[in-house]
């Protein structure tokens, strides 16, 4: 489930970066139009991947509930990071799916 959380977090981080305020805060400039589109596609695909994986592991009924809860919690975590530790936000979002993936393979 950490993998689902990580993928959700990454998806939301991508969605967040597609907003000019947050892109400016983290990279110093507003994103170009093509980059906005790319980030949104990545966000959607990544979120869908998380959902598909959750359903694959625990079935449709529970998969959707767990995915939705983890998505909301990932959003809250991202907001907290952006507010108090903005520099940690992207590294955390990038590391989480990797850690989750490794644990999923090992476990």
């Amino acid at each position, binding site marked *: 489930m950490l993998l689902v959380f990580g993928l959700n977090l990454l998806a*939301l981080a991508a969605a967040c970066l597609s907003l000019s305020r947050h892109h400016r805060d983290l990279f110093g400039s507003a994103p170009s139009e093509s980059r906005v589109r790319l980030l949104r596609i990545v966000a959607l695909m990544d979120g869908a991947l998380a959902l598909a994986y959750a359903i694959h592991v625990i079935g449709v009924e*529970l998969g959707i*509930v*767990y995915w*939705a*809860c983890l998505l*909301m919690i990932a959003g*809250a975590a991202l*907001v907290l990071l*952006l507010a108090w530790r903005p520099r940690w936000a992207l590294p955390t979002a990038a590391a989480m799916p990797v850690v989750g993936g490794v644990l999923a393979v090992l476990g």
Partner: protein
Amino acid sequence: MSLRQSMSGLHTWAGLLVSWILFVVLFSGTVAVFDKELTRWMIPQLHKLEQVKVGADPVRELIVERAPKAHGYWMHPPTERMPYWTAGWEPADFSEFQSFLVDAQSGEVLPKTVGGNFFLELHYELHGGLLGLYVVGVAGVFMLVALVSGVIVHRRIFKDFFTLRPKAARQRAWLDAHNVLGVLGLPFHLLMAYTGLAIFITFYMTAGIKVAYKSDMEHFFHDVQGAFEREELGKPAKATKSIDNMILKAREAWGDDSQVGWINIEHPADAAAMVQIRKAVDKGMVNDQRTVSFDSGTGALLHVQKPYKPGYKTYAWLTGLHMAQFGNDLLRVMYFVLGLVGCVMVFGGLQVWVSKREARGHRGVALVRTLNGAVCGGLPMASLGLLAASRLLPAELLQRTRWEATVFVVIWLLALVHALLRRGSRAMAREQFVALAALALLLPVLSLFGPEPGRVTTHFASGDWMMVGIDLGLLLIGGLCAFLGWRLGQERAAPVRERRARNEEYA
């Protein structure tokens, strides 16, 4: 007036009116996610269950001993989350259900406690019976109103999706928090408000049952669940057969590895006496119970309940989604976190209301602030006080559960008096945080002086991570409150000019 303006007024005032009740409902609901774990925590005398040595028959004897003439007997065998026998009876005069817990290994009757159930009852009826149920229902409808109008009022729902600026001016910062938590948690909030209302649909929308069932709600539920019933014969009951054998037969009838849940004995004193065995709530969303009924006198199998039909299954699914008995501990942790998000959202909304009107010297500000302190600070304090009472009150105390509830009420009243004296000021908030920190940090320490099986060290040694988690959570809450109390003290000292400069930056 535009739609957004009128919705803004609705959101502000409809929200404010019910926000304190909503805070109580949300907070107690959040805590009640772990009701069974809290019950276990509140009985430090309970040993770790290695092996179930006590069967259903001795437990029945314990109940009959206490209530030879009850209307019905109920018992629940130990499960993973409830590692003890729950036993109880419906008194002959249909007064309140009486229950007690039994150690499934030693057969000892455990000390009485209100347990986590206290928070559950606070959540759905404010301990106020039918009236409380309706008050919570009204608050739930208002919550839906506030959520929908909030979405309409929000000007930049996507642009501000991730925006939280804690260093901005108070009003801005709280508005951000209120918005961001409301929007991010919206699916959860909407779902919980809606399914919460759906659970008590038969109380809130009564017309159908009044017409079709002449107000006989029990008859309605029997019909839709496909339950089995027998009329009393008016003859004395025969000697009872072993329930433990019936459990084996019920398991055969189910044909799977389901755990046994509630067992009840209907018409215990009559020849029509009947033992009914249900499936326990397990990892699935819908528990259709599959009640197996036996004749108590002969042990013959009378009826096996069919799986729910689609209509009732939908209802069971919606209520299941709300009550979070499915899935594993992770699910309950997630519900707990999202519940806290809801609490902070409500509190954030109140803070926005206050900080918007503070500068203007609005007359209501003092009242709202006092109520904020009394409810949003008082309830967590009273809850921690209740946990402390369950650990401190002597185990043999008469009417022990009443004393626990009294401690809860007294602490809450003290918090109200304190909030009134301090008029909801910053100093009040600071003192509340200090009190919360002291209580929360004290509880795990307190456990070290209590009965051995309930100590945090014992749980740690036996790898009971749920119980360790509760104590660690309390330490965490205590640390956080201590930090916030310290910060509030610091903030008062910080020059106002600095804050104002930051405000301009964000303007």
